[in-house]
């Protein structure tokens, strides 16, 4: 147990260390980086901004974690982000009174409902039809962008609604509402998967689908649930993004967020080959990516070099997370692993599968 625990600590230790380095870099450049001020009863500061702008990514990555844990992947989240924002803005823009709370709530409900349906569709393709997840969700990724533009009519829909603005740009109890919503969803997910059997079932389906089926787990149902959950999270993130700018852009909202979300999941220590997952790691991974984006602005890196910087940091995080790399670095010669190129835990899983 202690070995497992120290391993788990290690998995989150290295991303956390990189995060600390990035934050230190920021403080060195702008000494006021850590200062959090209270203005009009609201908290302001760079750290709060990281949390606020990172909230949609946290949500998308949260949904993605469970999908990845079942050995799947969901490429369609970016499109779902665009669709849910578009649907909500379309509904609100046609309200007679855009500030009516009931109307906005209805819009949110409809948008999340649409996202849920899209998730069920993904889950249906993966579990019932048996299409490989990357292709099944690629269909919605391509077609979904088109659907979002269809909803907005190829335009950017702008709304002027106080209650809608609250979700992405407003404050509750002095904190940005998006942070509270994101943390609420993380807490709900953690409660759901760690206090019920759901998390274990998800890990079991991801670890070995066939064995899980033979053990009596309805893996199809589990798969549909995780894809629906992923789309729901993406839909909520889409509402947040569109609410923050009070408009919906079917073409660009959530573009390539799926890659950032998958990156966040992986940086958080969840393996793409399925099985065990870490929600806390995912949140840390998402915050790391957001901090990286903020750092790029603070450092004043020219826009054309942003990607180079990102590549550098991602490579650095992956390398120091890799036990093989650290072993080589500290010149401790390990005997060659019989798996020839996989982490030990993965090898253990594979051995179980093969056995």
């Amino acid at each position, binding site marked *: 147990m202690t070995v497992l625990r120290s391993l788990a600590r290690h998995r989150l230790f290295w991303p956390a260390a990189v995060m600390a380095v990035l934050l230190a870099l920021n403080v060195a450049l702008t000494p006021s980086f850590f200062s959090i001020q209270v203005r009009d009863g609201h908290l302001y500061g760079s750290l709060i901004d990281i949390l606020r702008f990172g909230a949609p990514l946290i949500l998308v990555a949260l949904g993605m974690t469970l999908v990845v844990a079942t050995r799947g992947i969901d490429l369609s989240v970016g499109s779902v982000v665009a669709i849910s924002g578009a649907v909500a803005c379309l509904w609100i823009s046609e309200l007679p009174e855009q500030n009516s709370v009931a109307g906005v709530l209805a819009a949110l409900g409809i948008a999340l409902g649409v996202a849920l349906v899209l998730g069920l569709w993904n889950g249906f393709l993966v579990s019932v039809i048996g299409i490989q997840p990357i292709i099944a969700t690629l269909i919605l990724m391509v077609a979904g*962008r088109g659907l979002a533009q269809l909803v907005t009519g190829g335009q950017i829909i702008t709304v002027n609604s106080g209650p809608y603005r609250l979700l992405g740009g407003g404050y509750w109890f002095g904190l940005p509402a998006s942070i509270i919503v994101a943390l609420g969803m993380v807490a709900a997910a953690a409660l759901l998967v760690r206090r019920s059997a759901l998390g274990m079932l998800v890990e079991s389906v991801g670890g070995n689908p066939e064995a899980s089926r033979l053990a009596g787990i309805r893996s199809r149902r589990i798969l549909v649930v995780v894809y629906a959950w992923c789309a729901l999270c993406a839909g909520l993130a889409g509402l947040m993004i569109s609410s923050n700018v009070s408009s919906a852009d079917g073409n660009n909202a959530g573009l390539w967020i799926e890659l950032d979300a998958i990156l966040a999941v992986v940086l958080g220590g969840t*393996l793409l080959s399925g099985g065990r997952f870490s929600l806390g790691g995912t949140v840390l991974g998402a915050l790391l990516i957001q901090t990286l984006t903020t750092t790029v602005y603070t450092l004043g890196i020219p826009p054309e070099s942003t990607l*180079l910087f*990102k590549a550098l940091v*991602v490579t650095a995080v992956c*390398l120091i997370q890799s036990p*093989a790399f650290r072993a080589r670095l500290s010149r401790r010669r390990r005997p060659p*692993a019989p798996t020839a190129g996989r982490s030990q835990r993965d090898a253990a899983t594979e051995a179980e599968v093969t056995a």
Partner: protein
Amino acid sequence: MSTPTTSPGTEAASRRGTTPGQRRSRLSPLDPRYLPIAATVAILLAAYVFGVGRYDAFSDGQVLLNILVDNAFLLVVAVGMTFVILTGGIDLSVGSVVALATVMCAVLTEQAGLPAVLVIPIVLATGALLGLGMGSVIHYFEIQPFVVTLAGMFLARGLAYTLSTESISMDDGVFTAIAQTPVPLPGGLHLSISATIAVCVVLVAAYLLHYTRLGRTVYAIGGNKRSAFLMGLPVARTRVTVYTISGFCAALGGVLLTFYTLSGNSLNAVGLELDAIAAVVIGGTVLMGGFGFVLGTVLGVFVLGLIQTLIIFEGTLSSWWTRIAIGVMLLLFILLQRLIVWRAR
């Protein structure tokens, strides 16, 4: 590797590689390994007949050849991707490497004034080197291919941006000559030089995968990396090689795209990696590795190309209906393929 007696229809059967014993039954219609390919061929034919029936100009043989001409670069990239996916890996960097290659071609010939005979080898070597780097990191530091190649994707795109953020048009003699010389075929039809290169790449890849030790090892690693290692196969060398091949193919695809557009642009080929992966998977290759054919990838590229062609012939779709139509047709292809495979089993 497994024996030909394994019962068909199981996951185990679908993950076999080729063995000499199975080669005899290669053309047997009942061999489950060829079902996805047979299904794809059947659907392609049906879609082609549909196109011929609906549009007057569709029956022209040049329409089919143009699919190859217009997608030559995608075909080359997808062939490289096939090697990687067969080992159970994935390469997300190919789209960015294509963009980097086009920008390098343009910058080196137009701004640095180097001759094309020197530029093209430099570009191809750069692609191969990037692939070599990623493959080494993936294998020796045991990091997931998805993440390493995602970082590679950022790196290559970032390098392309750093070289130039604008589109550079080219009027270099060699590039223009290669771009504009048609390769005549009997019947008044013609191919481009790029398409001919793509066909050669497919043939070389098919030879490598099905008739050499390297190919056999690729299938073995995809089937079970551990067993391949215990059998004494050169797992490390082969894994690094497949990423090098993929990087090389991506750079070659970039060169072909430069011939096609006669310009270099760092915004080229965004999302191309997904097209390439889709082509490979539609062609019947399993993402877990160990099972699939280069021929399937060729068919996958033709499926994507035919979808584009049908939409162009329809001609009246707005940009968002085009996307929806691509998604729906992709879905139809995949559903029909699943249906045929199910039925036949």
